[in-house]
């Protein structure tokens, strides 16, 4: 009897060890090849969150063509088909020759502006490597040229007066597969302002994020509060409103469609951050969309 029990116990033990062995083998694989460094991918689906930039740059050798529209003010009512009778457009090209460095140009209906920028991804969020990088950081420097005819042509006008500069430090973290958040400290510099009391420099701290609702649809929002509101340049004698935007990203293969409502009609930083005239919360809304198409140039 005793020997039988012993045999049964031994038999059970062998069975169990056979099953365990397969799992042990996988575990020993883990110790042989520990997880390698993983860089966070697709923190955002495009190079724009809504109006503003994200930390994303096109992959090396890729060019993105951006067509962005903002329709008229929804408050214009049925006569203007709630703004859809009027449209403001920006056409843009963005290209990364070197990994992580992107060059972009654009032309907007807004103030007949031409804009250009350099965008460099300094840090990439990663885990599992020698050290963990909790955030991705991208630097952006841009320039916008106001192309409107001089308001006072008889005066001596300088080309430099048309220029506005934008500098941003974009800091983002993909918290999980669905949620990404971004901070956008921004400096906008006007070469020329109308009054002595107005500051040439406007500081803003943008906050934005996206939340994936399904695998092809995400909800996006961004807000760009200005930190030195008291001295920022006035538009038609009024202090500009804070830029607020809410929208969705819809992804279909090589395209990303972004549909949104925002209180800004401009699609360049100095326009939407510092020159939005009506408040989002009193219904000064513009319906808009961005479409981007990526081309592989290699």
């Amino acid at each position, binding site marked *: 009897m005793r020997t039988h029990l012993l045999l049964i116990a031994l038999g059970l033990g062998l069975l169990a060890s056979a099953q365990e062995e*397969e799992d042990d083998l996988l575990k020993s694989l883990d110790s042989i090849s520990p997880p390698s460094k993983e860089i966070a*991918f697709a923190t955002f689906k495009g190079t724009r969150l809504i109006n503003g930039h994200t930390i994303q740059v096109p992959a090396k050798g890729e060019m993105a063509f951006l067509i962005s529209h903002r329709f008229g003010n929804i408050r214009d009512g049925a006569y203007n088909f709630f703004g859809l009778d009027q449209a403001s457009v920006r056409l843009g090209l963005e290209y990364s020759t070197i990994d992580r460095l992107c060059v972009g140009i654009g032309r907007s209906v807004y103030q007949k502006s031409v804009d250009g920028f350099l965008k460099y991804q300094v840090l990439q969020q990663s885990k599992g490597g020698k050290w963990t990088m909790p955030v991705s950081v991208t630097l952006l420097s841009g320039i916008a040229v106001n192309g409107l005819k001089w308001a006072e042509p008889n005066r001596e006008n300088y080309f430099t007066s048309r220029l506005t500069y934008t500098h941003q430090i974009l800091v983002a973290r993909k918290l999980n597969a669905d949620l990404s958040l971004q901070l956008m400290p921004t400096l906008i510099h006007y070469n020329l302002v109308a009054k002595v009391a107005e500051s040439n420099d406007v500081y803003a701290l943008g906050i934005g994020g996206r939340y994936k609702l399904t695998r092809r649809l995400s909800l996006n929002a961004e807000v760009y509060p200005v930190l030195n509101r008291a001295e920022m340049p006035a538009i038609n004698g009024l202090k500009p409103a804070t830029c607020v935007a809410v929208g969705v990203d819809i992804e279909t*293969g090589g395209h990303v469609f972004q549909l949104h409502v925002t209180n800004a009609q401009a699609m360049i930083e100095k326009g939407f951050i510092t020159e939005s005239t009506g408040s989002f919360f009193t219904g000064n809304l513009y319906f808009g969309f961005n479409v981007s198409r990526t081309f592989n140039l290699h």
Partner: protein
Amino acid sequence: MMFVLLSVTFQAEAQKLITRTATANFYSKAKLEDISAANKQVTMLINTATQAVAVKVPIRSFEFEKALMEEHFNENYLESEKFPEATFSGKISESTPVDWKKDGTYEVNVEGKLTLHGVSKSITEKATLTIKGETISVSCKFQVKLADYGIKNDKLENIAEQIDIQIKGELKPL
């Protein structure tokens, strides 16, 4: 008794062969475009004493021709943030024995559990083992039906319902 057990484990330990640089390739043949990707960071282990086989494929290490394909693969299909690796653990079937001490090519059946996209399934696939001295070359071609592993496919993109996978490696003693 204990001595026997100890010596068995000791022997088994000495008969593990591994590689960290095996490759996994996959091919999707669909109407609009053919998609392929290669992964050079596959680890594979064979225990010649027990015929056990283990394979680990880090999903993020698949390299595609286009960055956007890689993003879609990781984000929309394999969901590699939730399921960072695919694994196989099993053994060489007793119906196809291998003489580990003798050089030659062996056609074997490998049976076990494939875990992909968080879903485990029992599979049996054919593999070719080539033994030359202390090195064992492994080659295995098989097909995976995406739906079996809960990988969502849709009509927007052109990915085959069935993916061809090829795994190759040269294993050396640990």
